[in-house]
C-alpha cells in the first residue's frame, strides 16, 4: 500500500497542478499562469515527472488537505506588501513581485473522482521512483501539503545538506544563486519587465533545485529535507545572507580549499577516477561554451523580435502611402504577418531561455558540485595518508623508546599507536566508502543528465515545431493576398 501511496505522492502533485490550472483566476499574474499551463499542456495523463514539479510556488499556503475549498492565491510572507497589488482579499495577495518565493505543495483538488481523492490513474513509468518512495511515505505525515518558504530557507537547506553529505561523496544539487541586484529591484517594488522576469527565473530555478534534491534517494530521506517540505515554521536561516559573517567565512574556506587542492598530490590507483575527472573537466568546458552560445542566441532572438516589430510598423506605413490599392493591402497584410512573427520570435526566445539556457546553467553549477565531491575524496585520501604517516612516525618513536627505560612513556606511545591504527583503519574505510559512493553517484548523475537533456531537448524541439506550424499558417494566409496584386 505504501507502494501505491508512493505513486500518489508525486502524481498527486502533478494532477492537482493540472486541475488547478483550470481554476486559475484572471487575476493571477499572467506570467505565472502561463508557465503553469505550458508545463501541463500535455494533460494529466503524463508519466514523466521530470518536467512537472510537485512544488508549485504560487498557491495558497495551507497545511491541511482541503478537499472542499481550494484556494489558489499566492501569499506574501511577512514584510511590506509590494507597491503593485491586484485587488484581492487582504489575506491573499497575488503578485509576481512576491518578495519571497514560496514552496507550496498544492492541496488536492480532485474534480474527476467523487470520493476517494487518492485514487489517481497515473502510472509512474519509472519503477525506481516508486521503490524509493516506499519507505519515505511513512515519513511524511500527510500526503499533500503546502508550505511557505523564503528564498533564504532554500539556501539554508542547501548549506545543511552540503555540510552533511558533500564530504562523504554525495553530489548535493547546488541552490540557485543570490542576486543582490535582482532582489533589490524587486524589494524596491519596481514593476517592470526585468523584475518580473527575475522573479519568474528565480521561481523556476527553485523548482528545479527542489526537484533535483528530492530525486536523490538519500537526500529525500534526510530529516532536514523532510522538515523543509513539511513543517509550517522553519527557523530562519541567518547564515545564508550574502554579506553576513558566515558568508564571508564560507568564502574564506573556499579559497583555502582551492589552495589545498593544488598542494595535494594523490597517487591515483584507480584509473576510473582519473578518467572520470578528466571527463568532467571536458564536460565543464563544453557546457560552459554551450551555455554562452545559448545565452547569445536568446539575446539575438529578442533583438530579432524587436527589429521585426519595427519592420512591421514600417511596412504598414509603406502600405499606407502606396496608392495602388491591391499592393497597399498586401503590404499591410505583410506588416501584420511580420508582427505576428515577431511575437513568435519572442516566445521562441523565452523557450530557448527557460528550457535550454537555464538547464545548462544548472548543469554548469552541478558540475562544480561534482568536482567538489572528487576533491573531497582527495581530502579523505590525504587524511588517511596523513594518519598513516603519523602512525609510522609514532611507531619509529616507539621503537626508539624501547631502548630507553621509560615504561610510562612507552605505554603512552603504545596507546597512541593503537589509537592511530584505529584512525588509519577508519581513514581507509572512509576512503573506500567515499570512492564507492562517488562511483554510484557519478553513474546516477550521468543517467540523470542524459535523461534531463533528452527531455529538455524534446520539449525544445516540440516548441520549435509549434513555431514552424504557426509560421506556415501565417504565410499561407498571406500568399493569396500577394497573388491578388494585379
Amino acid at each position, binding site marked *: 500500500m505504501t507502494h501505491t501511496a508512493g505513486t500518489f505522492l508525486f502524481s498527486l502533485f502533478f494532477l492537482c497542478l493540472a486541475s488547478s490550472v483550470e481554476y486559475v483566476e484572471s487575476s493571477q499574474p499572467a506570467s505565472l499562469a502561463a508557465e503553469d499551463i505550458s508545463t501541463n499542456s500535455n494533460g494529466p495523463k503524463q508519466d514523466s515527472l521530470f518536467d512537472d514539479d510537485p512544488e508549485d510556488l504560487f498557491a495558497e499556503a495551507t497545511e491541511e488537505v482541503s478537499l472542499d475549498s481550494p484556494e489558489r492565491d499566492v501569499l506574501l510572507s511577512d514584510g511590506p506588501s509590494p507597491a503593485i497589488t491586484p485587488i484581492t482579499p487582504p489575506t491573499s495577495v497575488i503578485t509576481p513581485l512576491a518578495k519571497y518565493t514560496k514552496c507550496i505543495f498544492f492541496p488536492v483538488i480532485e474534480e474527476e473522482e467523487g470520493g476517494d481523492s487518492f485514487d489517481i490513474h497515473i502510472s509512474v513509468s519509472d519503477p525506481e521512483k516508486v521503490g524509493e518512495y516506499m519507505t519515505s511515505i511513512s515519513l511524511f505525515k500527510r500526503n499533500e501539503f503546502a508550505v511557505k518558504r523564503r528564498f533564504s530557507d532554500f539556501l539554508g537547506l542547501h548549506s545543511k545538506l552540503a555540510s552533511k553529505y558533500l564530504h562523504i561523496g554525495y553530489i548535493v544539487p547546488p541552490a540557485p544563486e543570490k542576486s543582490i541586484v535582482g532582489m533589490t529591484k524587486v524589494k524596491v517594488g519596481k514593476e517592470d519587465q526585468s523584475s518580473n522576469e527575475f522573479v519568474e527565473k528565480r521561481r523556476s530555478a527553485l523548482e528545479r533545485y527542489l526537484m533535483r534534491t528530492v530525486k536523490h534517494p538519500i537526500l529525500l530521506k534526510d530529516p532536514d529535507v523532510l522538515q523543509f517540505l513539511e513543517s509550517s515554521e522553519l527557523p530562519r536561516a541567518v547564515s545564508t545572507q550574502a554579506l553576513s559573517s558566515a558568508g564571508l567565512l564560507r568564502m574564506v574556506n573556499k579559497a583555502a580549499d582551492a589552495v589545498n587542492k593544488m598542494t595535494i598530490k594523490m597517487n591515483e590507483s584507480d584509473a576510473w577516477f582519473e578518467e572520470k575527472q578528466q571527463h568532467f573537466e571536458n564536460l565543464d568546458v563544453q557546457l560552459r561554451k554551450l551555455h554562452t552560445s545559448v545565452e547569445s542566441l536568446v539575446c*539575438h532572438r529578442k*533583438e530579432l523580435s524587436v527589429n521585426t516589430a519595427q519592420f512591421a510598423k*514600417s511596412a504598414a506605413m509603406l502600405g499606407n502611402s502606396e496608392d495602388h490599392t491591391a499592393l497597399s493591402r498586401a503590404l499591410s497584410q505583410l506588416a501584420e504577418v511580420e508582427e505576428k512573427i515577431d511575437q513568435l520570435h519572442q516566445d521562441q526566445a523565452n523557450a530557448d531561455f527557460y528550457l535550454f539556457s537555464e538547464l545548462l546553467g544548472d548543469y554548469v553549477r552541478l558540475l562544480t558540485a561534482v568536482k567538489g565531491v572528487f576533491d573531497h575524496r582527495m581530502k579523505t585520501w590525504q587524511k588517511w595518508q596523513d594518519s598513516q604517516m603519523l602512525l609510522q612516525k609514532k611507531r619509529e618513536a616507539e621503537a626508539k623508546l624501547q631502548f630507553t627505560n621509560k615504561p610510562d612513556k612507552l605505554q603512552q606511545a603504545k596507546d597512541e599507536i593503537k589509537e592511530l591504527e584505529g584512525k588509519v583503519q577508519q581513514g581507509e574505510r572512509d576512503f573506500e566508502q567515499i570512492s564507492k559512493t562517488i562511483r554510484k553517484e557519478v553513474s546516477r548523475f550521468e543517467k540523470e543528465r542524459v535523461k534531463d537533456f533528452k527531455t529538455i531537448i524534446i520539449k525544445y524541439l516540440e516548441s520549435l515545431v509549434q513555431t514552424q506550424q504557426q509560421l506556415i499558417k501565417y504565410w499561407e494566409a498571406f500568399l493569396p493576398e*500577394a497573388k491578388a496584386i494585379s
Partner: protein
Amino acid sequence: MSLEPGLSQQTISVVQEQTKSKKSFNVDLQTDAMLQVDISDALSERDKVKFTVHTKSTLPNFKQNEFSVVRQHEEFIWLHDSFVENEEYAGYIIPPAPPRPDFDASREKLQKLGEGEGSMTKEEFTKMKQELEAEYLAIFKKTVAMHEVFLCRVAAHPVLRKDLNFHVFLEYNQDLSVRGKNKKEKLEDFFKNVVKSADGVLVAGVKDVDDFFEHEKTFLLEYHNRVKDASAKSDRMIRSHKNAADDINRIASSLYTLGTQDSTDLCKYEQMLSLNLTWSCLHKIEARIAADEDLKLADLLKYYLRESQAAKDLLYRRSRALVDYENANKALDKARAKNRDVLQAETSQQLCCHKFEKISESAKQELIDFKTRRVAAFRKNLVELAELELKHAKGNLQLLQGCLGILKGNT
C-alpha cells in the same frame, strides 16, 4: 538664312527620326527583342570585379550580332552619369546606378576567421569557413544581378537603348579608360549635390498646374521616405536573423563535440549526433531564410529606394524646367516692356517652353511606367517571399518531426 543652331539640329534629328521610323515599322518589335544584354560571367579580383557583358543584337549599328566585353564598375557609373548629364534625357527616369561591389565586410570576416583558426576545432573552422564563403558568394551574385538589372533597364528603354555611349559601352572591346573620380571631382560632385538639393527645395515649392504631377510629387516624396525607412528596418531585421543563425551554428558544433566526447555511451552518442544534425539543418534553414528575406524583401526595397529617387530627380528636372520657363516668360515680358533684346528673350522663352513640354510629356509616361513596374516587382517578390517562407517552414517542420521521432523512440 541663318537658322539658330539649335533649331537646325532639331530639324536634322527629326528628319532622321522620320527615316528611321519608316524602317522601324516592321523592325521595331524585333528591335525590342533584339537587344538582349546580360552579364554572362564575373570575376572577383583583389579590389575589383570584372563583369563580362554579353550582348545579342540585330541592330544595324553593331558590327556583330553577338559579342562580349569586359567591364568594371566604374564604367557602369560612367555610363549612368552620361545619361544623367545628357539634357536630352531630362524627361526620363534614368535607371539608378548599381551600388559599388562591397566585399569589405565579408573579407574582414574571412580574415578574422583565418586569424582565429587556432582557437577552434577543425570542424568548427571548416563550418564557419563554408558559411563565410557562402556569404561571399551571395554578395557576389547580388552585385552581378544589380549590374545586370541596370543594363537590362537601359536596353528596355525605348530611347535610352539607342544612346551612343551605351553602344560604345556594349561594344568597344578595349578599356574605356574611365578612371574613377579623383578627390577634386568628388568634391565638385558633393557641392553639386548640395546645390541641387537646395534648389530642389526651392523648386518644390512651385505649385504645379497639372494635377497629375502635383499628386505624383507629394506621393513620391512620402513614398521615398517610407521606402527608406522600411529598407533600413528590414536590413536590421535580417542582420539579427543572421546573428541568431550564427549562434545556432556555434551551438551545433558544441553539441557535436559534446556528442563525440561522450562516445562511451552509444545511446548518448546517437542522440547527440541526431541532435547535431537537427541543429546544423536548422542553422542552414535559418541562414537560408535570412538570405531569402534579404534577396526578396531587402533588395526590393533598396532598389525601389533608388528608383524612387530617380523618379524624384525627374520631377525635379521638370520643376526646374517649369521655373526656367516661367522666368523666361517674365524676362520676355520685361524685354517687351523695355523693348530691348526682345528677339533674344523670345527665343530663350521658346526654348524653355519646348524643353518643359518635352519633359512633361515623357515624364507622364515614365511615371506611369514606374508605377506599373513597381507594382509588378513588388507582386513578384512578395509572392516569391511567401512561397519560400512556406517552403522553409514546411521543410523545417519535417526535419524537426523526424528528429523528434528518433529521439522519442530512442529510449
